């Protein structure tokens, strides 16, 4: 006993050092399971409140651009309303109210404010001020008014953490709008404006200025949300795939308001997919 004590007195520092380092490494390696423990991420109350205070100051710097965005979005929506009203009237005229059109309500949008956002790491995350109580759950898609932003990974009652597209672990199934060629979009870790589209075979036809949209395979995102614009598209002689670089349509530097997408039939789809795999 005495010897043990003497040993600990002498090497206690090293002992503790090893214990603490192993502990941190365990947390790093098991990141994915810990991410769902919201107290260890920035969706915990204390962290989120501070981030919120910071966000309320920082958001002033982006006011001009945010206003412009809102204005353009407003006009776009007004145009759409006008267009739909026109259609509705013509339908009413032709069918005398006999035809019933079921509204497509598969997806529902929840607006949220960005209170924490980084772009300077390899694994970037975004914190939102909406959480469980607002119906947000992990695996939901997040978009801003220009395009895809990321996917929710952790949720507490009032806050949520989103894995940004600017995350080396993020993979998004995309397709080329013009030709319907599929690929998966991965960030290269360097520039917050650009990402690479992988796994597009050589026989496909992808050109500069093509739009990349979500494929709609996963039910996280509905089909057709813009993701990126192709800026570089090359066939390298050594690879059987295209080398494609796209400029992301969402602007991660000035992210302020985003929409979280709730898919109403998510559970149903998941059970069907599970049954199908068996």
């Amino acid at each position, binding site marked *: 006993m005495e010897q043990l004590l003497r040993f600990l007195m002498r090497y206690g520092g090293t002992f503790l050092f090893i214990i*603490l380092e192993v502990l941190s490494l365990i947390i790093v390696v098991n990141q994915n399971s810990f991410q769902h423990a919201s107290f260890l991420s920035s969706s915990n109350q204390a962290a989120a409140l501070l981030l919120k205070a910071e966000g309320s100051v920082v958001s002033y710097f982006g006011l001009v651009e945010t206003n412009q965005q809102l204005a353009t979005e407003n006009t776009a929506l007004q145009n759409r309303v006008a267009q739909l009203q026109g259609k509705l009237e013509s339908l009413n005229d032709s069918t005398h109210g006999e035809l019933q059109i079921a509204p497509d309500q598969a997806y529902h949008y929840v607006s949220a404010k960005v209170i924490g956002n980084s772009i300077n790491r390899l694994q970037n995350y975004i914190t939102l001020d909406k959480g469980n109580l607002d119906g947000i759950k992990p695996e939901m898609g997040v978009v801003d008014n220009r395009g895809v932003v990321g996917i929710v990974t952790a949720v507490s009652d009032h806050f949520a953490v989103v894995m940004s597209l600017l995350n080396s672990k993020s993979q998004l199934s995309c397709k080329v709008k013009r030709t319907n060629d599929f690929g998966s979009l991965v960030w290269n870790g360097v*520039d917050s404006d650009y990402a690479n589209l992988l796994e597009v075979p050589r026989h496909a036809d992808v050109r500069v200025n093509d739009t990349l949209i979500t494929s709609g395979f996963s039910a996280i995102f509905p089909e057709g949300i813009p993701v990126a614009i192709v800026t570089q598209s090359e066939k390298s002689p050594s690879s059987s795939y295209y080398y494609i670089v796209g400029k992301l349509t969402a602007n991660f530097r000035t992210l302020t308001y985003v929409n979280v997408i709730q898919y109403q039939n998510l559970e149903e789809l998941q059970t069907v997919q599970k049954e199908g795999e068996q």
Partner: protein
Amino acid sequence: MSGNLFMRHFIRFVLLMILQVVIFDNIRFLGYINPLFYIWFILGLPTSINRSLLLILAFLTGVILDVFANTLGMYAFATVFVAYFRSPLLKLVEPRDHASSAYEPSIRTLGFPIFLKYAASLIVFLHLLLFSLEAFSFEHYELVLIKTIINSSLTLLLVLSVQKSKT
């Protein structure tokens, strides 16, 4: 630790944490500017501090930063590492007459060249560790090296400038 000393380091700790979380972890310029200025807290603690206490403080510092930055364990690992190798390194670089008495490592107590050696090596170590852990593969080694060089220099510059303005 006497009350005065404790308060000074406690205030420094709080200020550095706020600065790190609000500003240095959030710089959205160029995409890879992320100086780790908070390490000045660990660098500046008095040499008389109990070794285990130092390690636990480092771990806590790391965990708090991890929570805010969503980096889970990375800050903790790197900070504890630096804290552990602080005193062996100090023994290596400090002048002979310092060996017996306790002091707080700074330009004033160690002199510029020795403090520079001490701070620079630990700071480069810290950045290299943290950025490598973040990449978690050798795929991004170029990016890790560039980030280490740029951000270590920034952190060192910050640490030296707060020292200079104090003396």
